[in-house]
């Protein structure tokens, strides 16, 4: 039976709660209602209100309380109803959770998860990709799965991890992506990218929902001119799998980075710098970026479609790169 990306997330939490009594969930409307997107549906009935906690609309308190609980040896999984609202808990994440182990050795094993990304006409406050605020914060981990398998395996690994993890689930993929999942327990290790398509002529580095237009563009390119693109799905943004990126850059000599996040300060810049430092002699062209422009995420369909990268824009950039 195929499992959707959303169901994979639900299964990961469910199974970890069954396995480990220190795992619990808290957030807004996650109990009786089962969550705004139904990720926690049925959990209240199964695990009871002590472990499935409906909270006030207080992201700062949700994350703060998760930190306190994590310091007590629990493994809280806190839901942000939309990841846009994680900004309300910025201090708790960047100053409390992120720095605690470094300061006095106490880890903060918690997961803060929530739906990110655009493509569903959510407008400026229900479509954001806030990963880089946190990728810039040593002490946090940041993951962004693109497949149902990774959604489940990365979340299990995040829950079991002894440091704080921000888990970005792309709402566009929730019910659009599905696959058969193994019956047995599995995890996807944090900090390891996946090569989704092998290639020799150029490398496309991406993550999250952008994986799919990247694969589409790669297929177009091959059909058009026989150019073989390697597509790397980062899966984890922090820690970043620099090894896989650099190895591919050395192999193909041409790299482009695609992300739905806005351009300035996006992870593409960090990847380009890493390639400059570690694979400069192998490069046959500049590291190109295909990203959202530096604007808020607009609401109206023609605006959002203009804002988001897509297979056409990616293929255009890839043609330019291949021509070098």
């Amino acid at each position, binding site marked *: 039976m195929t499992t959707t990306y959303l169901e994979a997330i639900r299964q990961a939490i469910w199974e970890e709660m069954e396995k480990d009594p220190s795992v*619990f969930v808290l957030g807004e409307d996650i109990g009786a209602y089962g969550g705004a997107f139904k990720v926690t549906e049925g959990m209240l009935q199964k695990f009871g209100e*002590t*472990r499935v*906690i409906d*909270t*006030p609309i*207080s992201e*700062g*308190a*949700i*994350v*703060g*309380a*998760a*930190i*306190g*609980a994590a*310091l*007590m*040896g*629990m493994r*809280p999984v806190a839901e942000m109803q939309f990841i846009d609202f994680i900004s309300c808990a910025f*201090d*708790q994440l960047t*100053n*409390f959770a992120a*720095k*605690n*182990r*470094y*300061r*006095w*050795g*106490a*880890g903060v094993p918690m997961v803060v998860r929530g739906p990110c990304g655009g493509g569903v006409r959510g407008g400026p406050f229900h479509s954001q990709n806030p990963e880089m605020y946190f990728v810039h914060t*040593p*002490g946090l*981990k940041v993951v962004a799965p693109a497949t149902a398998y990774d959604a489940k395996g990365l979340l299990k690994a995040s829950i079991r991890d*002894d*440091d704080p993890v921000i888990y970005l689930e792309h709402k566009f993929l929730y019910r659009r992506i599905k696959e058969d999942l193994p019956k047995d327990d599995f995890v996807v290790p944090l900090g390891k990218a996946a090569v989704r398509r092998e290639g020799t002529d150029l490398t496309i580095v991406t993550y999250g929902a952008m994986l799919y237009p990247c694969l589409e563009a790669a297929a177009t390119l091959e059909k058009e001119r026989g150019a073989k693109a390697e597509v790397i799905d980062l899966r984890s943004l922090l820690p970043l799998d620099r090894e896989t990126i650099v190895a591919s850059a050395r192999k193909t000599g041409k790299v482009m980075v695609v992300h739905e996040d806005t351009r300035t300060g996006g992870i593409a810049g960090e990847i380009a710098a890493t390639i400059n430092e570690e694979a400069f002699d192998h490069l046959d062209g500049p590291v190109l970026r295909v990203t959202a422009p530096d604007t808020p995420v607009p609401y109206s369909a023609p605006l959002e479609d203009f804002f988001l990268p897509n297979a056409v824009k990616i293929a255009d950039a890839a043609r330019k790169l291949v021509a070098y």
Partner: protein
Amino acid sequence: MAAASTSRLVPAATTKKPAASGRVRRPGAKGAGIPKGMMPPPDRPLVNPGLSRAQLLEIHRFMRLNRMLEDKLTALYRQGRISGGLYSSLGQEAISVGTAYALAPDDLLAPMIRNIGSMLVRGVTPLDFFQQYMGRYESPTHGKDGTLHFGNVERLSIIGPISHLGTLVPVMAGAALAARLRGEAHRCSLTYVGDGATSTGYFHEGLNFAAVLKLPFILVVENNGYAYSTTCDRQFRVASIAERGPAYGVASESVDGTDVLAVYAATQRAVQRGRRGEGATLLETRCLRMQGHAQHDDMRYVPKALLEAWAKRDPLERYERFLVASGHATPDTLRATAEAIAPELDAAADAAEKCPPPSPEETLKGVYKEEGYEAPWWPAA
């Protein structure tokens, strides 16, 4: 309860309306220029809430140690032997010691920057503090953070603070929640905010969160009149922060923060409410910060009359007068306590100074879990 005379419960129905207009007294009046509500509360006699003589003297020793330790830290700071910020709790020792003393050892405690006394009660030693302030490798943070920014949940039930005010309020609500989830519902959690941090969003979010989930959480507000240089009338329009208790649906009290026994008794009542499953308590303690925000601050903005009024209410002197008057101590025995502490502090400071600093490469270690950084290294098991 004997100590109730020095405190007041604030029933919802009698919440006072804030003053209709300006809170600053007219020129020429007694306490001119002093915002209303900043002068000391009535000076009532201390009342023993049922503590043994040994306990009374132990409280005294902690208060004296609190003061002398900070005096020593100040001297070291002026000699350039410690760096960074040094925040004094002069005039507030009764709050740290009285609240912490009312907790059981496994109740969860999160100090803020002026609560060195709370940590002393929990068993943190002067050597620990000296090493921490001197940035030594063997300090609770390996030199990566300073001041009172450290803890150990497993061994001392202490959660260390960060500098961002109010953040500990939801964190400690979460600690109480976790205790309940772990089947340890008897464990209360307690933390502190100043009058200034009552203005933060986290104060509201955390207290409301604790109220809604009926957590055994005690939020102590040390109303010391000033947030850095800003007077408390620029933080809130209520006469007492305890008035906010009914608004959150939690118990609240306001006590004289210079009366260690009143602070102790009020905390005890809050602990008992928590253990009975009656939820959170908001406890205001009134005092004046008798030194600047930190050592660099000459606090010329504090009116002399205000300082003089509160100087007469020195919590340590008040308590010593009580101990002598009630026959639990004599001036000689009190002096002997101080004389025993002094060489202990000198020896600890010298010992800390001889400890090695961290190696520069220590900078890169322990951001994430790795060998040697799986759990707090301090205090040694």
